């Protein structure tokens, strides 16, 4: 394209110098054609993927397991990984300027890599320093068939070097007039599966990080409530460390435990036949 423009520019210059204005329409057409060609080429090379957060590697590895669009397969198809906080919300802050929102991004990258190693497709709720709402993050999982949701946190308290897995508190069974589960109770049908996944991952974490509980804890975690998928929150203790490297050292163990836990959970995952009603 650069060459075309140079040629056109030379043509214009020559025409101007020779005062031969009859060549102007021809040159103008040439320039327009060159610009149009360049624009078309650029658009083709920079076409964004339809799901930018889905890794190409995972897509490739997941291809053999995928079915045709008309026959959705029950079971685990994708893990929606949620690095919590971000944007104007830094989350927990440590003494050395450590921000939870930054650390969880690093952890998410390692967890994603470990999950892909297990042949599991991964979607991240955020990849940069932005802060989607709780509902937007849940919606990313709710839009998938056969998703598992894992939200990553770093605590500001707790025994340093330990990791806790949380599942949501039991929600009362409620449906609306149409038999649909309200959006704000989307987690309800998945509570049993969440518990199973949480216990699996927590057990693996307890083996790697001494002092961590053996089973998942229960808490009213806001992010989990609106998620229509087996959902767990993983919280690492803590941002109150002297050196960020102490947290960095934990990331591979956390990633491995989550990946193995999810892979072990995979055969037992059968999507409950429910409807999640309404929009947030």
């Amino acid at each position, binding site marked *: 394209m650069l060459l075309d423009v140079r040629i056109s520019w030379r043509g214009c210059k020559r025409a101007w110098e020779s005062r031969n204005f009859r060549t102007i329409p021809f040159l103008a057409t040439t320039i327009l054609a060159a610009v149009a060609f360049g624009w078309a080429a650029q658009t083709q090379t920079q076409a964004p993927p339809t799901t930018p957060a889905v890794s190409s590697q995972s897509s490739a590895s997941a291809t053999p397991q995928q079915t045709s669009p008309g026959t959705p397969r029950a079971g685990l198809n994708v893990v929606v990984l949620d690095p919590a906080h971000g944007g104007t919300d830094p989350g927990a802050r440590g003494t050395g300027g450590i921000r939870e929102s930054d650390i969880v991004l690093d952890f998410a990258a390692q967890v994603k890599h470990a999950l892909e190693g297990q042949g599991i497709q991964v979607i991240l709720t955020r990849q940069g320093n932005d802060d989607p709402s709780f509902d937007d993050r849940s919606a990313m999982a709710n839009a998938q068939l056969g998703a598992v949701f894992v939200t990553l*946190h770093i605590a*500001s308290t*707790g025994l340093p070097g330990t990791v806790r897995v949380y599942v949501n*508190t*039991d929600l009362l069974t409620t449906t609306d007039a149409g038999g649909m589960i309200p*959006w*704000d109770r989307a987690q309800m049908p998945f509570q049993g599966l969440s518990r199973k996944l949480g216990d699996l991952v927590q057990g693996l974490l307890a083996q790697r990080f001494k002092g961590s*509980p053996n089973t998942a804890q229960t808490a009213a975690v*806001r992010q989990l409530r609106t998620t229509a998928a087996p959902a767990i929150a993983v919280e690492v*203790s803590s941002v109150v460390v002297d050196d960020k490297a102490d947290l960095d050292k934990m990331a591979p163990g956390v990633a491995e435990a989550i990946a193995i836990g999810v892979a072990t959970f995979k055969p037992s995952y059968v999507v409950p036949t429910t409807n999640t009603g309404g929009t947030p």
Partner: protein
Amino acid sequence: MSPRLRAWLLAALALAVIVGVVYFPILRRHIKQAEVMQEQSAERARRELAQPVVVNPSEPKVKAQLFWATGNGDGTLSPSIVELPLSSDPVLRSKQVLNTLLAGPVDVELRTLPPDAALLEFYLLPNGTAVADFSEALATAIPSGIQSEQMAVDSITRTLEANVPQVQRLKILIHGQEMETLAGHLDLTGTFQVSTGASGATPAGGGDKPVSPIADKPAPAVAPKPN
């Protein structure tokens, strides 16, 4: 425009830019300081407005159980026995135990609630649902995290359960408002179960709002209740 005038104008413009660059951080610092002062004075005003709980010394002193952290960092709570002249009225009694809980234990390391937090109001509905309205410091000064936020709510619900049997569920408000979370993690849109005997739930709020979830008290994170 003469070259001389243009030079003067450019110089004036450059001077204005330099002054702006120097003054901007100072201005920003002043604005931040003013914001902090405003927040502190508003918080102070709210605490002054909060009516003090009338303690009747003639009430017999009873052994109240207050739940603070065990101090081992694993998120568990343990009961401490404190002798208080507790009122027989459930609302006054709730205010008394919660204010004592907020005042904190002797060992500050065992605190579960921020020292600046205050109980602004407490209501008890006929169906056993209590509404506790705390000052903003409860949300802003609490350490961020699922564990710390869960501990704070647990210490409140366990203390109410141990001392005020009439309270079955608890709705937490911050400065009179329903908040989505306590400090970014724990869901405050529903009610927390206080009494283990509470069955079903009348959701707080109501109207055409979606039904709020009922948050069960997370037993695994709490030390076993002594007999």
